[in-house]
């Protein structure tokens, strides 16, 4: 009798745990798969704020397009004066079936040197353009890299959110744990916390100005604060347009060289 009760209890717990895990994974997948258009264009305004409150701004013109399974991106610096014209082109490829990543192809153009140089070797956990964001923070991190769990539920700015935890499987990952507050209805992230290898809070993310543009949920202002260094980056997306025709030739090395993209 005792044995049967124990078995029953274990089975119940196992089912509960499994369904919980499944639902965490499902939420993570829905967040990951949020649609964002075939093409987009915008102006990205980046403001770096140091611990003393000094600010430094950069403006970047951004163009993206999906070419089959390849995501192509062109970034052109507009300000400040000394970086104006520096352009990046990158081709990001989908991960392999086993979950391993495929290195992206990137090029940089420096107007002062009149040269396009191929850049390789940078990793997704590197800083995005010298900000407090990493490429992973702004892009779609591969789901196979993390174990997901739901830590609870909470309201953020009036929206009912799941508190979703993503623990990195790689013990050497710079960020060991990400906690995001995900809107139960839209699966858009409202805020986030990032923990370092020692499980100390390293960065906090606040998402604002979340709107539907052409049916795509878009976050137009993100503030990432490194609480360990008190450095902050405000990332704002302006003039965001989806699914409008963009010049495909923008996404070529020769377009960079000709300084064709403005």
């Amino acid at each position, binding site marked *: 009798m005792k044995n049967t009760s124990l078995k029953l209890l274990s089975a119940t717990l196992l089912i509960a745990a499994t369904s919980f895990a499944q639902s965490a994974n499902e939420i993570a997948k829905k967040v990951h798969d949020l649609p964002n258009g075939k093409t987009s264009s915008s102006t990205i305004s980046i403001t*770096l704020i*140091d*611990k*003393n409150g*000094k600010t*430094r701004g950069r403006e970047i013109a951004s163009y993206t397009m999906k070419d089959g399974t390849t995501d192509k991106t062109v970034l052109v610096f507009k300000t*400040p004066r*000394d*970086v104006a014209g*520096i352009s990046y082109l990158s081709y990001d490829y989908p991960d392999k079936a086993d979950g391993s990543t495929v290195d992206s192809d990137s*090029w*940089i153009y*420096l*107007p*002062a*040197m009149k*040269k*396009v*140089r*191929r*850049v*390789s*070797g*940078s990793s997704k956990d590197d*800083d995005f*353009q*010298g*900000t407090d964001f990493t490429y992973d923070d702004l892009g779609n991190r591969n789901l196979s890299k993390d174990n997901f769990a739901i830590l609870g539920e909470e309201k953020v700015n009036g929206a009912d959110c799941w508190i979703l935890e993503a623990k990195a499987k790689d013990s*050497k990952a710079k960020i060991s744990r990400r906690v995001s507050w995900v809107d139960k209805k839209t699966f858009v992230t409202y805020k986030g916390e990032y923990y370092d*290898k*020692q499980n*100390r*809070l390293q960065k906090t993310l606040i998402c604002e100005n979340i709107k539907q543009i052409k049916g795509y949920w878009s976050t137009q202002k993100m503030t990432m604060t490194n*609480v*360990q*260094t*008190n450095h902050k980056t405000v990332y704002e997306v302006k003039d965001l347009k989806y699914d409008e025709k963009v010049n495909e030739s923008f996404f070529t090395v020769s377009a960079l060289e000709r300084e064709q993209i403005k």
Partner: protein
Amino acid sequence: MKVTAINHFFGKVGRVQVRFRWVILAVFFIITSICCSGLTQFAFYLGDEGWFGGSDEITINKQKYEEVFGNLNGVGVLVVKQGDGDLFSEDMLKMIDRLGNRLRDEIPFADRLTSIIEVDIPVGNEEGFEVKKPFKDGIPSDSEGLAKARELVMRGSEQTNALINSLVSDNGRESWIMLSLLPFEGEQLKEKFEGDKDEVTLAIGYKLMEIIESEEFQSAEYKLYGSGVPYEDAKEERYDIPEYANCVMLGFVVMLIFLAIFLRNIFGVIVPAVATLGAIASVLGAMSYFGVKADSTLITLPIVLGMALAVGYSVHYFNMFKLFFRRTGKRKESVIMCVEECGWSVMFTVITTMASFVSFLFVDMRPLSWMGKTAALIVLAIYVYVSVLIPILLSFGKDTTPDTANEQGATKLDMKFSAWAGFIQKKRWPIIIISLLVLAAFIPGIFKITARVDYDAISGDKMPYVQKQKEMLDAKLGNRYSYSVMIQFDDEGAFKDPKNMQALIDFEKFLGTLSLTKWSGGKARVSSITSILKEMNSALNEGKEEFYKVPDDEYVLAQLMELSSIEMRQDFNDFMDEEFKITTLSVDMSRYATEEARDNVAAIQAKLAELFPKAQSSMLGDMIQYAEMSNRTVFGGIKSIGFSFIIIAMMLILAFASIRTGLIGMIPNIAPVILVGGVMGYMDYALDFGTVTVMPMILGIAVDDTIHLTTHLKSGLEKYGSYSVAMESCFREIGKSMFLTTLILCAMFMVYLFSPMRFLFIVGVLIIIGLSGALLADYTITPALLHAVKPFGKERSKNEA
């Protein structure tokens, strides 16, 4: 000043002490308990941090630096391969990887790790450039993979590869594992360290020690050497503080032995011992209660001195009590008479000793002002505890029958002292001349005194970690001291101007020419933003060596800097602020030498003024800190000697109500100071924060015997009318006790001679020389001078007497 009136007052005090003894004991018990409760908050200032106050320029510069560039301090481990081969074997690389991971994962406030495993290498090729991680796919186990990784890390030469002879030696046998630290602030500081940044530093240092000393990293294949301020501070606490504790314990044992010898009863040992401990614990407890941190290096001085003086005061009170108790047999009356007799004379010596320590309060150095304050308070507390508790505790017990047989009478030794006084008077001029010649011989030595305040110089060779330190310094990459120079323009983007960048390059080259700059192979260990710019420029130009330079075209330079700040933000921000107007250079030093450091600092300041006339610049770190510390030690020493000289002279003048007598009284007290100064110069005992305390201290203690001598001579003169008779009587009465008090003090400070800490040993030697010199002066030049000068007026004729 009428001594009888003062004694009468102390007699009243004695009466009150006896009458209200239980109340006084209760009050003392309560006060002591409250003060001692503060000991739970007792903490040390470690390292050199405690040297500079919050408003000090060095502290302000450090704060400025940390606001821009983050934590100035980091920790590192130097790995040195032993036996054959180099570090690029599978086992060695795995060890470096494991060690790096443990540092990053376990050390509080860990930020970025840099090692040959964790390094980004921008490599240029015909197409562009690639940021390579030599061990991105793990550490290879095949020789081909290992050779490839080695080739990547060690590519080019030290002139074209920033890593060679900086992160890794050119023979591949030495390498640094460096961990930068986050600013000590935020939740972690509050929650884990209760907001105490010193605790963070210590925790980091101890964790580093724990990791490199763990079983996992013990091997004959390599040696590990820890480095960084937190590591040094933890070492100081681990090795030095037990040494200080040993000194205090040994001092306490010596104190008990002396009390047992002189007082020869258990009560006479326990009561002064308890009073001494109570006084010292109360002062340290009360100071801790008010948040005053103790200075670890100087903590023993006030304690050992306090114990020595406690023995002296106790012996004084006990002997005086015994004298009256033998005469009268009445305990309480004897106690009152004892207080009446001893109260003023002991108190006056207390005041002069305190005055010499108060002189340190005028010195702009926190450890010395702490020591002065603490020593003065301990001396006062010892006096209060001994003069209040001993008479009260002596008042308990039965009366006895008077012993008139032993009431008076001098011993053989007393008579010899008396005869010595006669001899001195006869030979007073030869003695004065010989004394002056001896002192003159010591004067040139004073001008040879140098200052050495760096940690290694004061620790000496006998400390267990010093040999390891030396081994590290002998290594190609090993270094112990470093400093940084921060250059700040007002205008944004100032360093994008090729002229300013060229000035920075010239300044970097100049730093390499300084005598104290460490060189590894053919490379000066100067780090700056230029190495990042050179690497980036070369990488953007197909990796060609001829482009391993900072571009001089304004547009190219500006864009390269912007690009570097984007692509290598963290490395870039270690050396340049986000507005490109503040930069820093860091320099590793081969060794520390005071005079050279002062010269180097002066040369750097002149060069900065020449190259960057429109910028503000500041220096931080070991070189400027030690140079400043040695300057302050020298000037502080002069100041405190000057102050104590003036204060004590004024007190003597007041005490004798005569400027002439007061100043004459000072002469024999300068003698031991000259003696100590001469010995320091001739023996190359440099001024440091220990030795700088010796001269004012000697002045304060030596003056006690001069006061006794002069007072006795004066009263003898009033009694006998003749200087000769008065002097002989004076020596008969106090010659022996002067010897005994000096013996007690010397024996107490002799505990320093057993310390492996070099500076404590030297302090011990100098105090013993100084006190012995003072006694010698009081046996020779003082009576000779008093007899020659006759400060108390003419002798009376025999008839008058």
